[in-house]
């Protein structure tokens, strides 16, 4: 009797994202839990531990995995893979123990996005030729593991990364020698339910489970979703065991390949990943359009010693780049429209019948919104957390918004290359014969004798951009589509700092534009509702 606990099974990508948003990392930036490694930021939380981006004393960037749970399984898997080197595998450098006796895995830091993130942006899948290219990289990595007698056992988009156009397979936590896989009568927690081969439930499996998972991955890349979905892990497992995959949504050329890869009986599947990779290549070569698709202009990865598997064509990050620009342009367009509606609405209801403020309010709102949206949309997804770099960048942009506000209000900017002769009376050191009271009256705003106008504006907007975590309002995985609390926070700070602005007109303009910015950023930014998966204990008993 085999018992398969679903507590580990349920670590699919969506659950992981849910956990990430709820859980907090144990270590913060700057801490050194492991001698010689300084934590920079947390980058992932998984069933087996926490993953951090860290830098060694020598300056090398690494990923540190703190193994907290399933220690034995994890360590066993890691030790088998520690000396494997392959272009398409995330390199494992070392296993270290900290002063508290906790184990840390030192890994290659992969800056690219996980495939799960990329696929989540492509609900209808990616282009077949691109999927085939990515599959070649995946196949090479699996082939390398199989050559070393290792079954990955946890192939899923969350464990596959795309860095500089190169596929990298990571998370060796569940890797296991094939020889161990045949032991019967053991309780095993293996892999993620959506990618789990039917024979895993019997406990008698081999490298074929990776081929099955590769078939699921290829299906997902082509269609944007996995072939077997359900309300619970049990339902999905039952579909793996009994239901044929729906291949009507994949390009017809791929159907034979997927049919064979997703066979319930492992004996009927491809006997090696190499065989499957060749079949995929044949499909692409058999289609003129796919074959003649524009070749990506990237440097190919170094040649592998084993020519058995065709060299993976380096994939282009064009899709990722395009998606990011698509998000950005769409968001910016939305922000313009929303800002226009809000500015008109505000002027109608609170403008007191005067339309004088409408255009400055609109443009200032758009400028402030873009200064929030553009850097935060282009910011690397791996650096979502707070950092002073981000805050200082925001502050600098806030200075720019302040200058823009002043320019929009019709004030002249003193530039070294412009003729400022007419401004001579405003320069205290050139104001011959002008009494101090007189020039003080002209260079300082009448209602505020503390700072010159430019300093007022840039201080106000700079501080507003510094103190608030604006990027939180633009994140796709924020908890709510629209948070009134965020707008309230913006309004509160905008009100508190109003003393910096010189007169009532500027105060209204500054306050309202920032308030509207708080709304615009949230409404125009894409939002993805989190799927909450109930983690109930489930046991699947297979005789």
């Amino acid at each position, binding site marked *: 009797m085999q018992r398969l606990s679903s507590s580990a099974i349920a670590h699919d990508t969506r659950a992981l994202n849910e956990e990430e948003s709820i859980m907090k990392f144990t270590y913060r930036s700057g801490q050194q839990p492991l001698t010689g490694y300084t934590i920079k930021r947390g980058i992932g939380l998984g069933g087996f531990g926490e993953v951090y981006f860290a830098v060694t004393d020598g300056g090398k960037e690494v990923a540190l995995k703190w193994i907290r749970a399933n220690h034995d399984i994890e360590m066993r898997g890691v030790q088998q893979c520690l000396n494997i080197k392959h272009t398409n595998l995330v390199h494992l450098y070392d296993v270290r123990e900290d002063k508290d006796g906790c184990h840390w895995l030192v890994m290659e830091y992969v800056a690219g996005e996980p495939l799960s993130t990329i696929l989540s942006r492509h609900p209808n899948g990616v282009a077949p030729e691109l999927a085939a290219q990515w599959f070649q990289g995946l196949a090479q990595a699996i082939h390398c593991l199989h050559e070393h007698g290792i079954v990955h056992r946890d192939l899923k988009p969350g464990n596959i990364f795309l860095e500089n156009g190169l596929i990298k397979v990571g998370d060796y936590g569940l890797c296991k020698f094939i020889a161990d896989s045949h032991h019967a009568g053991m309780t095993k927690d293996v892999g993620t339910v959506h990618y789990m081969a039917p024979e895993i439930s019997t406990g008698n499996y081999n490298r074929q489970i990776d081929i099955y998972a590769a078939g699921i991955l290829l299906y997902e890349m082509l269609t944007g979703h996995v072939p077997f979905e359900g309300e619970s892990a049990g339902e999905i497992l039952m579909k793996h065991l009994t239901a044929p995959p729906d291949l009507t949504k994949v390009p017809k050329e791929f159907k034979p390949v997927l049919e064979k890869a997703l066979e319930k009986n492992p004996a009927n599947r491809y006997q090696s990943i190499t065989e499957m990779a060749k079949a995929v290549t044949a499909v692409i070569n058999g289609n003129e359009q796919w074959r003649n*698709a524009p070749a990506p202009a990237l440097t190919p990865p170094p040649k592998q010693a084993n020519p058995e598997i065709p060299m993976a064509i380096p994939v282009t990050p064009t899709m990722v780049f395009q998606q990011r620009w698509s998000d950005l342009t769409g968001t910016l367009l939305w922000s313009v429209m929303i800002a226009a509606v809000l500015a008109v609405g505000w002027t109608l209801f609170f403008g007191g019948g005067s339309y004088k403020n409408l255009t*400055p309010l609109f443009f200032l709102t758009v400028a402030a919104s873009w200064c929030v949206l553009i850097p935060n949309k282009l910011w690397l997804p791996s650096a979502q957390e707070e950092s002073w770099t981000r805050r200082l960048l925001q502050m600098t942009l806030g200075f720019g918004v302040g200058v823009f506000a002043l320019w929009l209000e019709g004030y*002249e900017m003193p530039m070294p290359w412009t003729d400022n002769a007419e*401004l001579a009376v405003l320069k205290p050191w050139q104001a011959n014969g002008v009494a101090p009271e007189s020039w003080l009256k002209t*260079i300082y705003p009448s209602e505020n004798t503390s700072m010159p*106008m430019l300093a007022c504006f840039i201080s106000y907007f700079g501080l507003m951009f510094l103190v608030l975590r604006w990027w939180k309002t633009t994140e796709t995985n924020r908890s709510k589509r629209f948070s009134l609390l965020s707008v309230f926070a913006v309004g509160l700070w905008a009100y508190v700092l109003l003393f910096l602005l010189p007169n009532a007109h500027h105060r209204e303009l500054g306050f309202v534009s920032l308030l509207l910015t708080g709304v615009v950023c949230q409404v125009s930014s894409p939002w993805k509702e989190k799927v909450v998966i109930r983690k109930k204990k489930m046991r699947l008993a297979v005789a």
Partner: protein
Amino acid sequence: MMRSILGISALTIIWVFCTPLSAQPRELANKVKLPREAIGAGETSEKARVHAVKNAHDQVVKLMMAHNIDNENLKIDEAYVEKHVLENDGRSGEDIQLENQDPLKQWVYNFRTDGAWWNEIVRQDRSVERSALMARIMTGLSILLLAGFGYIRLDEYTNRRFTTFLRVTGAILVGAAVAGWWMIR
């Protein structure tokens, strides 16, 4: 990166506090001959005061026209002039004696002497000009964004099968829009 940002921030702050404190309305009071007073006459002092305000407004509008400032956009009216341009509440002048009629009352307003009101008008005019400029820039940017967004979405929708065609079409459309704008202009 961090150092660069800190450097840029520091330079910005230094620039702000160390350059001439002249981010103010261009001081034209020295160059422009501003009116000094406005006189109004009427049967009563109130009518004379209203007439004086109207005269002051006329002078301001004349001055604006002389400097190519369009009052259509600014809408400087008599109330504005009375509130922002004229000094205090004015004073009564000498009565004007007319034959066979009651004497007319005079009211004299002095214009404010610091020229700030003129700077303010110039600033407002510049603000309107810049808003118009921004409207054009924003329209252009929106069209470009729309074109970019449309191209990317279409390219995705067609699974990148017509990338070259879409690029060429996009370039032609943008080029045509620019050429059309240029010709109209």
